[in-house]
């Protein structure tokens, strides 16, 4: 489900990856990048949760909802990392971890 303005960044419960895609510039670049993100999501078995805010070429891929065993999670993580690491359209990728932030 696409939330307004990019990735369904509502509190990520499952695994998710941010990726930076290489793509054409200019007219139609956005659509082309979106298609690449969809294809990459397909290739990794994740869901394309959309562009990350205003960052061109940055997309969030999330694990479809559903409970999984720790062993499965580990296997999924390895598989996704392997696919992203060798995918020619991926310039950069990073698994999203929870950040610890405190009010001051």
């Amino acid at each position, binding site marked *: *489900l*696409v*939330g*307004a*303005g*990019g*990735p*369904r*960044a*509502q*509190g*990520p*419960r499952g695994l*998710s990856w*941010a990726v930076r895609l290489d793509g054409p510039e200019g007219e139609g670049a956005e659509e082309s990048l979106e298609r690449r993100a969809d294809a990459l999501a397909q290739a990794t078995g994740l869901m394309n949760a*959309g*562009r*990350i*805010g*205003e*960052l061109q070429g*940055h997309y*969030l891929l999330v694990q479809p909802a559903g409970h999984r065993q720790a062993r499965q999670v580990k296997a999924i993580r390895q598989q996704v990392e392997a696919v992203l690491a060798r995918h020619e359209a991926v310039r*950069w990728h*990073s698994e*999203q*971890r*929870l*950040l*610890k*932030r*405190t*009010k*001051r």
Partner: protein
Amino acid sequence: GVHFNDPKYPQQWHLNNRRSPGRDINVTGVWERNVTGRGVTVVVVDDGVEHTIQDIAPNYSPEGSYDLNSNDPDPMPHPDLENGNHHGTRCAGEIAAVPNNSFCAVGVAFGSRIAGIRVLDGPLTDSMEAVAFNKHYQINDIYSCSWGPDDDGKTVDGPHQLGKAALQHGVIAGRQGFGSIFVVASGNGGQHNDNCNYDGYANSIYTVTIGAVDEEGRMPFYAEECASMLAVTFSGGDKMLRSIVTTDWDLQKGTGCTEGHTGTSAAAPLAAGMIALMLQVRPCLTWRDVQHIIVFTATRYEDRHADWITNEAGFSHSHQHGFGLLNAWRLVNAAKIWTSVPYLASYVSPVLKENKAIPLSARPLEVLWNVSRMDLDMSGLKTLEHVAVTVSITHPRRGSLEVKLFCPSGMMSLIGAPRSLDSDPNGFNDWTFSTVRCWGERAKGTYRLVIRDVGDETSQAGVLRQWQLTLYGSVWSPVDIRDRQRLLESAMSGKYLHDGFTLPCPPGLNIPEEDGYTITPNTLKTLVLIGCFTVFWTIYYTLEVYLSQRNVAFRPICRSGPCHWPQRSQKAKEEGTELESMPLCSSQDPGGVGLESEGSPTTSRLHAPDLLDQGDWSLSQSRGALDVPQLLPPDLLQGKEAQMC
């Protein structure tokens, strides 16, 4: 001469200190000249903003708001067990609480619009931070962030890859290209011997790092020192001293007003409010103009603990107080006449591989790098703004390291302060420290990095693996800087602060936001529900009609004579509830030949319901229309009838 009927305004010493004159942000003179933040939007990135509260509602900007925790447009805080989600509302009140509404308090920029981005009340990732920093970035001018990594005296953290990219994108494309203004609180780790140079938000060149001082101008127990602090403003101190009075939420134990807002969380929004006043008088100030004006106008004051040092450009800086206290009158008068600084120039040294041991003795490790004129020719960089040093150091106990940087002028910056609680054995891995203490100094010359091991254990020695120097500045010469300082001082009388004087302001860029309308899950769920509801009732009614049809013994004997219709029960007829069902066509074969029934030509007389009896011309007309078979020639009729069938 400014009076408000807000009951707590007299207690808002940070706005106008009657008890200790001068110990405030000096804002009433600016208000008297109708500078209140009009036309500027400040967004509080926090745990939500209770925008329904009467001190905030009139200034609330739904267009600039969003809830990233629930993924919907409304950033209302959610009550939680600790009664803790009032933080964002309090910050919002400091900025834009509405005056003269006989409720609670007054905001610094009470004429500005206030928005909220709820992001702290739930799991937070790098991508969420990136979305938050650029959310509605053509509507929100200033992002006030009173939060950061843990202030536990042993954390080294900051924005990650996406957060950094979003801060940079914000200063490039935000606010119609003038650059979003990011204001961050320097941290509350004072009791843990923390230092805000270990906080990547405070260290970032894209943020305005604000520290706190108490009502007596001293560094409060909770405050942190750092070389990247730009300035300070007021907040609460220890128990004997007053805290900040501001709007509060009225959920759970909240009353809508508090006198207990404190910490650097309370200082950052006051700075954001003052920057909003600046942007009202000069909307085209860039993110760097704002930083320059703060450096040029912050005021040094007497505090023997502050360790003020005046640098080569004449700016006094303290690790405790930055360039000094923010002063709304000075900020706004400077903004009024400020012409934009030249473009940002930078110089990056090669990665300097050292692999040198850090002596265990008191003698430090010292490494140098000389930046020549030729090095700077390409960028044109002449005078400094931020100086950043990225280091990789191994050490068995990170908190035992002391890292200092000396600019060519000899100005020392403690960029990595020893931290007694930091026993992390992983050292620093490409961590970037920064300093603003050399602001305005010449960039050319030799930079010295001095690393000392102040630990008392005789553990194994640390090693400086590599380091890299990055200089940020502009083509301004030291003369330009002195000229600007003089110009500003001439404006401090307030002679330009009237509507008659306005410098030309270039229009901003029209940058589309990527917020292509998409359906939020809530909307989608609603639509899905409506859809299911519609389908269900459709099925139900279809079944009902079908079954009622079947129950009605519908066997018209149309072979001979006119069709007999089932007797309509008198009762049903009176109630008008009988079901009308009729064939739309006679048995006549469209080909003209066929199963013609004998006798009078069979026509499908449309028994319109009883309304026909309430005669009027149109109805008799429609009667005619209803008896259309008699009127149309057969061939046309057939066609007509066929169509109808």
